């Protein structure tokens, strides 16, 4: 005898009914976020950049290189997040700190955000590049950019035919000020060996992420008769490269990353700021369990600040100039020479004796 209740189901045979339920379940499962892919615990690293992001041929790219090397060597999962606006720094950093085991923040502009956020995440390691942050799970690194600037200034000052060199900066934050002061000290040293004055024109784009402005500022410098340009401008500097590439008789000294091969022969040299080494070493220390917190100053003596070997531009310099630059690199490696960090220290700077440094 059929049950009374069965009559109401006659429209749907059981097979159809279950296939519909199944379809509905599958549909809702698709809406759910995918389950965590791997059970084995790999350490997660998140790198935060400001609005310029990767591809700046400088600061961010160099640091990211170090992270990638660490990722390959220690089987980490590394990702980067680019913040689109200043209001995002604290929010993105909080999110990353919750998500990752190691957070790497790139750039002076992040300093305040790290100071605010780090205390709330005692179980996350923070590696901050440029700017001092304290905390026993925070390691911050600053670079003696003035030493790189000094070498750049020396090379530019010795090279210039028109006795006029230019600098394009991004924002005049302390690390950039150090670069520029070092550059001025380097030019001053070059003046001593040339026995003639060299004029320096410094212009600022007001942004690390404005290649168009970088390009027009470089063109303005060329119009003022500059024949060597030093850039300390992040992604803005990409525009400076453009101008140098397209202008006859104008040469560039790039910053942070070895870019000599990008425009062979027109990039005299690149200063090398080894953020990659600092980041790699810090991650290695965390993985191996001997993290060194605190603030670290890295310079030429630590192998963190240098200039390239000028592979493509050697022939443009006299052998005497090359010797001076080589000696300057050695002098800096031997220890601090009091290269000025701030603009107001440049006037009191005494050029070191580079001839005396023995080969």
């Amino acid at each position, binding site marked *: 005898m059929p049950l009374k209740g069965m009559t109401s189901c006659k429209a749907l045979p059981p097979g159809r009914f279950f296939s519909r339920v199944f379809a509905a379940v599958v549909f809702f499962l*698709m*809406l*759910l*976020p*995918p389950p965590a892919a791997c059970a084995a615990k790999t350490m997660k690293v*998140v790198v935060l950049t400001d*609005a310029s992001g990767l591809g700046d041929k400088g600061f961010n790219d160099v640091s990211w290189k170090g992270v990638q090397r660490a990722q390959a060597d220690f089987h980490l999962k590394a*990702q*980067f*997040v*680019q*913040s*689109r*606006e*200043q*209001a*995002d720094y*604290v*929010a*993105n*950093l*909080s*999110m*990353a700190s919750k*998500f990752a085991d190691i957070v790497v923040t790139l750039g002076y502009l992040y300093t305040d*955000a790290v100071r*605010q*956020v780090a205390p*709330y*995440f005692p179980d996350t390691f923070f590696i901050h590049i440029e700017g001092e942050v304290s905390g026993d799970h925070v390691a911050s690194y600053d670079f003696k950019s003035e030493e790189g600037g000094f070498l750049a200034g020396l090379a530019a000052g010795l090279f210039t035919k028109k006795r006029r060199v230019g600098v394009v900066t991004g*924002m*005049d*934050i302390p690390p950039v*000020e150090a670069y520029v002061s070092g550059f001025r000290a380097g030019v001053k040293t070059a003046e001593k060996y040339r026995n003639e004055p060299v004029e320096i024109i410094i212009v*600022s784009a*007001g*942004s690390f992420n404005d290649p168009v402005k970088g390009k027009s500022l470089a063109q303005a410098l060329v119009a003022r008769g500059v024949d060597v340009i030093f850039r300390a401008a992040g992604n803005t500097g990409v525009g400076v490269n453009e101008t140098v590439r397209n202008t006859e008789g104008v040469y560039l000294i790039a910053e942070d990353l070895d870019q000599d091969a990008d425009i062979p022969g027109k990039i005299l040299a690149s200063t090398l700021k080894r953020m990659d080494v600092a980041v790699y070493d810090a991650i290695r220390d965390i993985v191996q369990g001997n993290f060194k917190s605190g603030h670290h100053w890295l310079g030429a003596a630590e192998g963190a600040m240098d200039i390239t070997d000028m592979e493509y531009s050697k022939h443009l310099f006299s052998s005497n100039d090359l010797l001076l630059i080589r000696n300057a690199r050695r002098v800096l490696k031997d220890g601090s020479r009091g290269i000025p960090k701030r603009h107001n220290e440049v006037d009191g700077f005494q050029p070191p004796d580079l001839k005396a440094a023995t080969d």
Partner: protein
Amino acid sequence: MNKAGLGRRIEGSIESLSGLVPALVFGFLMCALLAVLAGVAPVDLATTVWTGAWGSPDAAATTLSKTTPLLLTGLAVSLAYQTNLLNIGCEGQLTLGALASSAFAVAAAPLPGLVLIPLTMLVGAGAGAAWAYPAVWLKQQRGVHEVISTLLMNYMAIYLCEYLVLGPLGDGTAMGRTPEIPTGAVWPFLWRHGAVGVTAAPFLALLLCIGVHLWLSRTCWGYEIRAVGSSTTSSRAAGIPVDRWQTRLFVLSGALAGLAGALEVATVHHRFYRTFSPGYGFDGITAAFVVNASPGWLWLSGLFLASLRAADKWLQLSLQVTPNAIVIIQAVLLISVACQARFRSAWQFMLTRFKEVRSGYR
């Protein structure tokens, strides 16, 4: 309300949504298509945006905080648009409002918070209003189109602020920022988790939107304003002071944009930074026109755009999508909404056919 009146009202609102809704659906489909082309499943994209924006209490707080400038600049654009004026100058008004309010807060530091906070907001709004007024004056006296004048005044404002903040109003560093505003001028968090939290600002912005909506839809003045919006010529013939309304609303629009800037200073940055705005003023145009410049619906577009923006970090982390993807999504939606007349005429065509068929049966 009698039955026929209700029916007419429902038909009217269907009529007004008949363009917008299909346009938005079309826009979302286009975004889904783009996602597929970029190798991302649309469902993943949607869930990621949802998780990134509302998945945890602090994510929700971040999203809400991001809603404030979008709502206010969106309201600024919608308000001016009620009288057929397009205020493209919100970015400049916002920047100037932010700088003015932060400079004022620094200068008036000794005042108690209860006085300082409202005064700071007023100064910001006043600066925005003052920057909006010349545009509408030029329009009425000299026939200069307000789109041109407000657009160009953006750049004047931005570079003026840049000059001021690097010089007389700056904090002495070369960072392009003012000194930090006194704690008395900072809006306290209503709720906080770690370093993120939410202040009363988004709720204030929401209230303002609702208030403006009621003002426009329920009052005599609102009626006059809407009349100006539908036809300036016939309003003028009916004795409505068109010019006066345009001036008032345009100045009010500038004030709202300035207020948006002042709120960003008082709730997020606690000082003016030269680069603080990623284009909030221009995003206000998107926020306004995605919902047909109607203040009553701004909460929807404001929350939606803020969710997208807040989720951009999560898009990068879990889908490896560039954060610029959200700018593309915004643009696609806006363009589809701009094409809504097309969708509406298609709807009306279908509706008339339907009525014909139905009356044919009778």
